[in-house]
């Protein structure tokens, strides 16, 4: 799959206005989703996914080809991978003092989405970020499967999103929160929602106006991507009266893990 998107920032003070405008443009009220995102990183030396594909009770059969595709990508280079769990502020947050009323997330039982995104294509004077992505739905046990495949847990964040759809266009406002430090593992109890520390002290929102291009059956994808590019530019003409889209250097979306330093004289192993 390929995704193309434009990026802008929306100030906290402008958030309600932005939502109202987007609601008018999309004829829908915003869908609020909150994800707990666990980040994993592969070894510097790319080895793909070492283990066999997870059994069907962990990874549905329909999603098995995606696993094979991800394996191919991870052979070229190691990447940062994301495991996203949808959470609810009412039941999943509350800290230790409210442990009785909130549930502790059991990663071995909860469904999650494994997200991988490639380094975006070069911009070529376009404000559109365009990159490959793979999203694999897991029924359960995603962190365990990742660790078995030599992907190490590094950190976690909370992602709060408000999304709108207009035709194929996906408009997402999101912002991120830090979770308290924990030694090399996801924390046991999520703190109270109000105690989350925003990644951005000014609590800005990030706006993505996005189009997805499904992986074509064989050829035709470059044409589809060109078409999507044109469609996105048309939408940009409309949206840029409202939002100040920024050209983002693709290095900020770099998910690759730097390969090990090659010692001169020995050559690559």
């Amino acid at each position, binding site marked *: 799959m390929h995704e193309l998107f434009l990026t802008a920032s929306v100030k906290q003070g402008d958030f309600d206005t932005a939502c109202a405008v987007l609601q008018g443009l999309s004829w829908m009220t915003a869908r609020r989703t909150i994800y707990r995102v666990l980040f994993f990183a592969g070894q510097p030396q790319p080895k793909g996914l070492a283990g066999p594909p997870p059994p069907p009770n962990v990874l549905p059969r329909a999603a098995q080809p995606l696993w094979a595709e991800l394996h191919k990508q991870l052979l070229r280079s190691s990447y940062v991978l*994301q495991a996203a769990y949808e959470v609810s502020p009412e039941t999943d947050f509350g800290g230790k003092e409210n442990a009785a009323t909130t549930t502790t997330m059991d990663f071995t039982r909860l469904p999650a989405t494994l997200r991988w995104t490639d380094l975006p294509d070069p911009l070529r004077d376009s404000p559109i970020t365009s990159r490959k992505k793979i999203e694999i739905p897991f029924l359960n046990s995603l962190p365990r499967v990742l660790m078995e495949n030599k992907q190490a847990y590094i950190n976690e964040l909370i992602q709060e999103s408000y999304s709108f759809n207009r035709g194929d266009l996906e408009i997402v406002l999101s912002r991120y929160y830090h979770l308290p430090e924990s030694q090399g593992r996801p924390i046991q109890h999520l703190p109270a929602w109000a105690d989350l520390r925003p*990644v*951005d002290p000014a609590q800005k929102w990030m706006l993505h106006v996005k189009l997805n291009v499904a992986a074509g059956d064989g050829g035709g994808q470059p044409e589809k991507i060109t078409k999507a590019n044109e469609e996105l530019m048309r939408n940009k003409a409309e949206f840029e009266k409202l939002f100040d889209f920024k050209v983002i250097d693709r290095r900020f979306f770099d998910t690759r893990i730097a390969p090990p330093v090659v010692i001169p004289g020995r050559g690559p192993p």
Partner: protein
Amino acid sequence: MSSLGLNQEELKAVEQTRQRLAQLSASINSLKNDVFVSNPLPNLDSLQASADILNHNIAAIHEIMAQNNDLFSRIAIHPSTNFPGRTQENVLLQLLRKKPEPEVEAAMEEGSKALANMPFPGQTQFGTVNQNKEKEDALENIWTAAREVCQERITEYVVTEESDSYTAEEREMGIDNVRTGLQRSLDDESEDEEDEMDMDEADGPAAGGSAEPDLMIIDRPPPPPAPAVSTQEVEGATLETILRIATRGQFTR
């Protein structure tokens, strides 16, 4: 004809003049009739057309007279020797009269007076020029005064009033009752930040699914900022930094 002592050419000039005069006379008569007969007066277009015709006729006569000026100043008119001068004396006197008749003369004088009073551009008559100059000066004085007053008022506005958020009317009514559409006071800039902070705090719990999202919760302290980034309180992190953290889970590595 030879007794007149005029050659063919000269006779033709006289004859032309006669014809033109006859035309002019006819045109004048026609206009006169129109003015007398029509009630109300002929419309403006028709009068203008008549004036054009008269003007044309007069111009034609003028041209002929100018061309034959030499001839006309030379020839003299006298009655033929066999003209019955005694019986037709009145006609003879009228025909040979050189001065205009008194009423015509009066009309001519009136005409030249009217002409003199007409403000033709470029006409150099000292009386009218002085008059015009006075009028111009008076007008200029008025406009200069107006300009000065305006400038003074604008300066006063820029210096003292421009920064005022309220109109004089609103001030009279009392600014506490003015509906600005804002929660904060327009005058007090320092309240600004506090208000924004309040809104932020209120947003947190409300977004977090509070039972009453409209309730403003103002006594909860703001979320503690990261020690390293506390100086970025106003602008916050850059978009790129946020994107990088969102992409990789942390800024480094």
